[in-house]
């Protein structure tokens, strides 16, 4: 089987995406258009041989458009639930900040509990379930920034960024030859494999000193003078799980300080509200603050 590459020059991003997947998390991709956000989501879904749905968020998108709707079935003489596009293993919510807060909030239950409730009925989402949302930090007219409560539910927020020169050259030349590389991807894992790995992640050993390290970082965000809102306990829990997932991906059954240190920026940055918080900044300011914090906390050895 020939090796197919759909994402070039960004191995870290793929690792982070898989980390989020294995820690039963969701991913927020924050970047300008055209750097491969959709390709990443699509590729991820293809690799694990599971259903994939893409929802393009617009300001007129209604919650029922996402979740599904109850309709009357005349043949059965009963109401029947029609599943929306959310019922898939990997869901790409493109330009999530274009939807109204009402539609955005419809995702809350799905993200947290992996189920949706419609008309007193609760429907379970398929397993595994992962939401990848993208948002464009530059475009602001007609957008609704995600509320903090929803941001807190994303395991990580990552920026793909522009490729370097050589990779971009490669991307340009390759894209001309094969129209859709994603189609060439073949599954390497089944959904069962993913679920099994998700259970394995929970068994990864984390030394108590590393828990202390996580707490020290979290505490520093809560007491930092240029941070208005520090990270929540949900955030520290998420970092713990993500670190476990990263350890498993690296072939270890125990965490090392690097797992925590590397993940604290993507896991924590989007949850902070800095003092100079401006709408147009994205997570740049908070990334800088967390890096500053990391360079002041002793690593437990």
């Amino acid at each position, binding site marked *: 089987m020939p090796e197919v590459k759909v994402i070039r020059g960004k191995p870290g991003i793929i690792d982070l995406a898989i980390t989020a997947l294995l820690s039963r998390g969701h991913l927020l991709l924050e970047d300008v258009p055209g750097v491969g956000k959709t390709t990443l989501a699509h590729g991820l879904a293809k690799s694990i041989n599971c259903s994939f749905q893409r929802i393009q968020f617009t300001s007129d998108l209604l919650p029922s458009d996402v979740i599904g709707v109850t309709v009357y079935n005349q043949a059965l003489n009963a109401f029947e639930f029609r599943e929306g596009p959310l019922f898939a293993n990997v869901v790409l919510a493109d330009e999530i900040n274009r939807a109204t807060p009402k539609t955005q909030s419809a995702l809350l239950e799905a993200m947290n509990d992996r189920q949706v409730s419609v008309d007193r009925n609760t429907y379970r989402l398929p397993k595994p379930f992962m939401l990848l949302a993208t948002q464009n930090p530059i475009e602001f007219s007609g957008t609704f920034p995600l509320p903090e409560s929803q941001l807190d539910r994303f395991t990580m927020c990552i920026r793909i960024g522009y490729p370097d020169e050589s990779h971009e050259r490669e991307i340009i030349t390759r894209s001309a030859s094969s129209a859709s590389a994603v189609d060439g991807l073949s599954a390497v894992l089944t959904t069962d494999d993913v679920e099994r790995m998700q259970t394995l992640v929970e068994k990864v050993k984390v030394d108590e000193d590393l828990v202390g390290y996580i707490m020290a970082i979290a505490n520093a965000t809560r007491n930092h003078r240029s941070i208005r809102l520090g990270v929540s306990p949900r955030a520290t829990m998420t970092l713990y799980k993500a670190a476990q997932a990263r350890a498993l991906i690296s072939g270890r059954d125990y965490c*090392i300080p690097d797992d925590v240190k590397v993940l604290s920026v993507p896991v924590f940055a989007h949850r902070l509200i800095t003092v100079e918080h401006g709408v147009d900044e994205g997570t740049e300011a908070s990334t800088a603050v967390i890096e500053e914090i990391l360079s002041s906390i002793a*690593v437990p050895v």
Partner: protein
Amino acid sequence: MNLNSYTLIVTYFMAALGLAAISLVESVGAAFTLAMAGVSAFTLALNLKGRKVIPGAIWNLLAAGVFAFFVADYLAFSGSLVVAASRFLTILLVLKLFDLNRNRDFVIAYAIVFFQILSAAASTVSPLFLLILSLFIIGAIWAMILFNMKRDYQEVHPTEKAFPKVAFGGPFFAYVIGASVFSITVTFMLFFIMPRMEFGFLQSKSLNTVKVSGFSDRVDLGTIGPVKEDPTIVMRVGMDPKARPAGLVYFRGMTLESYDGKGWVKAVKDETLVRRDTGGVFNFERLEGKVVEQSVLLEPLDTDVLFAAGNPVSVEGPFQNVWLDRSGTMRLPSPPYSRIQYRASSVLSPVRKDLSTPLPQYGDTSHLDGSPEGERIKALAESVADGANGARDKAEAIQAHLKKNYSYTLNPKPGAGLSPLDDFLFNSRQGYCEHYATAMAIMLRSNSIPSRIVTGFLNGEWNELGSYYIVRQQDAHSWVEAFIADEGWVRFDPTPEAGVSLYRPSTVSLYMDLLRWRWNRYIIQFSLDDQRQMAIRFEGVGAGVFEGLKGALSKKTTEGAASPLALGAVVAVLLISLIAWRVYTRKKVRTRMPHFYAEMLRTLKRKGLSKGPTETPLEFAERTGIAEVKDITLALHIERYGGRNLNEAERRSVDAAMERLRRSA
């Protein structure tokens, strides 16, 4: 050397200390100790060759046998628990040295040594013991470190039989010594600070009491002679050098007044019970004259008499009550049989101003009546005193006569069939203090002057280094007190100067004795009272420091008021707080970092590469770009965060990487 050899060395070092401690126990016997030392040396040879002579099962049997020996030793031979226990422990230790196999055996050996030290502590007062104890603490800390290393090694390599080669450098021994000094310091601080109880749970009667002569209700003539060549120390009497009299000091023991031809008897029962006053002091009658304070450390004696220079006016010590008779003899209800420390105040004047008419017993010459010897003595007494007017002159005439016409010897040849006094006065004309004093007392009585015999000690040697008298058996002495009307009881000593043992001890021996005195005084006899004294002194220093600080702050102090002592105390307090702070903060940053990683960091530091505290090990390894560092970091991950000990192969590769790193550095 490998770890096992080190452990053996420490074990034998400890065993040697145990034997040395046992050799300090009196009456264990040098032959026994030497024999045991010889057998121990033999076991060392066996252990070095790795041969086992006594298997564990037989060892237990032998130990039971040794215990039976211990019981027999206690009941039948030595009769002393400490001596029997010392022997028992020593034999047990030697047996254990034959059977040093498992880790447990080493621990048992150390425990036996500990008990040996303990039993030596219970019976010895030698300052050497302090040295042994200090060495024991150092050895114990060393042994504990080695033992832990060995056990850890065995845990990690359960299948390995041999032990790795190790080398201990200066820092290791510096650490061992430092830890020992610290623990000894703490122990001493505890020793001085812990509240002292005036009674001991284990205060045993001393093993060997000094048999003194002349201090019982009956003293036969000729009993003091044999001890006059015995250098055993009886007591040490500390005295303010400024108050020390120029002449010889008479340490008074007891007086006897009835002579029956063979010896002196104390027949007059005129003792009264003296109780301590509220301050804990026994006050006797007031006497005129300058009062001199003494601090007496009395060796265990078989007499109940208390000694003091001159005529005592008060005494203070660890006893409930004191009996005092009219002549000034202090006696305890029973002999203490242990070393006691007391303070006495006395008037050193040769006259005891007690003007009450003496009892008829003090003038009794009835044993002279009706025998030719008696008449001969009476005649001599009268002829010697003839021509002298008044009791004092007569007494002085008799004293001069005895000093001049009789020769001093410790070995008088007794004439057959004569009473001792008769023999001395008319036949051999030689004797020692007892004979002179008896002769004078009887001759005084023949001239109707009441008299009595006093037994005690004369002077001893003055140790200037510690300002105290060392009084030995050979300083035992007896003299006479005569009652002179209007003066009281006056001391006369008819013994010629040859009877005073005067010699210059060497400075070394004085130093040695000073050490012993201080050891006894401040360690063994350290009492609640001493603690109080020390507290008062420290309070004084503390107040001095406070005053000094206050003065320095207010700048009102006159020049030179800041005492160097206060300054020293401030520096000491600062130093101690600094150390305490260091110890405290160091404890807080305790780390579970494996040794090999710490060692790698040290090695790299020498190369100028050091890991920042906020850098993860992996980041550091990548920064250095050294493959060995990466390998060691991987091992660190496994052991430190993976919670798993490295397996054999991993450990070997870490060692190899470490070795390469060291060589390149």
